[in-house]
């Protein structure tokens, strides 16, 4: 019976003078009939299969009964109905396709479990390994990505990536790395990190090798960890400690031509604009650049919709016209420019914790260029540790 529901069932009412005859004839022709009910003197209701319905016509003619369909149900009728509504089927299938298509893409990455490592670092690592927003799930090999990320970070002991709908969940378990033990047991020399003249030496441990006023070269041992006695026998090797302040110097020379050349923007600007879409450039606004010299400044903007980045960029290029200009400087002006330039260079080169003892500025006119030399004499700690092997 359930089989018939799948195929389609028709509830038929027949009315005539002798409906029994109708049923007998139908049964004799091999039509299966069920649920027969007498409605009135002349009408009977019964169920037949959809496939048998057309055979009733012949019988109804012979028995002079009228056949009426009361109800139709079953899958076949549903399919017949759907066949008439093709656009509905197309729409529904497109809808299902879009749902399946969109849900097979990763739309977000969620990183959890990290306390020490910044999320963006893990995000970058995962992205490099191949897990990216907008990628298809089937293209991503999670186990390989896990391995790659695990190899990249020492601090991670376990990483698990799983999908939760369209979100990729990255769960991380961090490991505590034991701190590096600073050993003050291993024998160490203190050597000079640069040339200089010793101002004072304080050796807390180890044997002093230099004294005040000595000129030392880079790499020279200042405090030795190998302690010797008067007859040069090794007594012990220690981890030497101490402070060595020395006079060192920093120097910079800048050359300033008196015929000073400089560039200036004339104020004329031309603009070009492009739209970049998957590495293809599309010109929106073009202009003829006829400047001899120019600065080109490029701006790249990502288009977004509700903070979702689209793979579309807008590039605008600005061309600023430039002009070369010459200016004859006096020696004083050149000197000013030169010292500013040299001092800037020196401040970059010098470490921050030095004490400036002296500053010397020299100038020398050489043809039509002015050489400015600045010398800083500073006091700094030049001792660095070096292992004894």
């Amino acid at each position, binding site marked *: 019976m359930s089989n018939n529901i799948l195929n389609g069932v028709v509830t038929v009412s027949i009315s005539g003078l002798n*409906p029994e005859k109708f049923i007998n004839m139908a049964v004799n022709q091999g039509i299966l009939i069920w649920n*027969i009910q007498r409605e009135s003197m002349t009408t*009977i209701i019964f169920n037949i299969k959809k496939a048998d319905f057309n055979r009733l016509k012949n019988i109804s003619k012979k028995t002079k009964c009228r056949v009426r369909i009361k109800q139709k149900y079953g899958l076949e009728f549903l399919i017949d109905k759907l066949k008439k509504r093709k656009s509905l089927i197309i729409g529904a299938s497109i809808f299902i396709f879009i749902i399946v298509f969109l849900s097979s893409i990763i739309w977000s990455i969620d990183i959890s479990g990290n306390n020490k490592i910044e999320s963006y670092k893990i995000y970058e690592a995962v992205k490099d390994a191949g897990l990216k927003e907008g990628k298809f799930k089937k293209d991503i090999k999670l186990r390989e990505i896990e391995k790659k990320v695990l190899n990249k970070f020492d601090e991670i002991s376990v990483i698990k990536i799983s999908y939760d709908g369209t979100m990729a969940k990255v769960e991380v378990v961090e490991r505590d790395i034991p701190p590096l033990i600073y050993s003050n047991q291993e024998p160490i020399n203190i050597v000079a990190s640069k040339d200089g003249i010793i101002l004072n030496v304080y050796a807390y441990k180890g044997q002093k090798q230099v004294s005040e006023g000595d000129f030392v070269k880079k790499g020279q041992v200042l405090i030795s960890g190998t302690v010797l006695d008067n007859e040069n026998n090794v007594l012990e090797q220690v981890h030497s400690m101490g402070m060595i302040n020395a006079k060192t110097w920093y120097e910079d020379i800048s050359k300033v031509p008196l015929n000073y050349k400089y560039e200036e923007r004339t104020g004329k600007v031309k603009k070009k604009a492009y739209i970049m879409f998957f590495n293809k450039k599309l010109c929106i606004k073009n202009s003829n650049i006829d400047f001899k010299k120019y600065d080109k400044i490029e701006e790249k903007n990502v288009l977004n919709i509700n903070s979702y980045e689209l793979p579309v960029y807008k590039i605008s290029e600005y061309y600023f016209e430039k002009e070369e200009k010459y200016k004859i400087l006096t020696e004083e002006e050149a000197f000013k420019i030169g010292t500013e330039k040299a001092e800037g260079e020196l401040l970059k080169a010098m470490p921050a914790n030095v004490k400036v003892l002296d500053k010397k500025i020299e100038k020398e006119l050489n043809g039509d260029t002015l050489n400015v030399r600045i010398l800083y004499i500073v006091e700094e700690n030049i001792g660095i540790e070096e292992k004894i092997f």
Partner: protein
Amino acid sequence: MVKKSFIKEILTDNLDMPRDVIYNLPLITLIGDSEIHIENHKGIIEYGSEILRLNTNIGIIKIYGKNITIKEISKEEIMINGEIGGIDIIK
């Protein structure tokens, strides 16, 4: 009653073959007072909610009761539901 033949007599009496098959007799099964199962029928003569008459080899079987419905009918079998009051065999 149908005509008796010698061979059929032997088959049924001595070899214990089912009588309904040999004589082509209707097999009437009554389940409680709510369902009747009849095999080897020869078509409906009259059907109403209180009466059902069936043609068979042994004559007309008349079933009466209340709310009689035919659950299923095919060439050889018929299943009847309802509150059955009685069965008559009319020869």
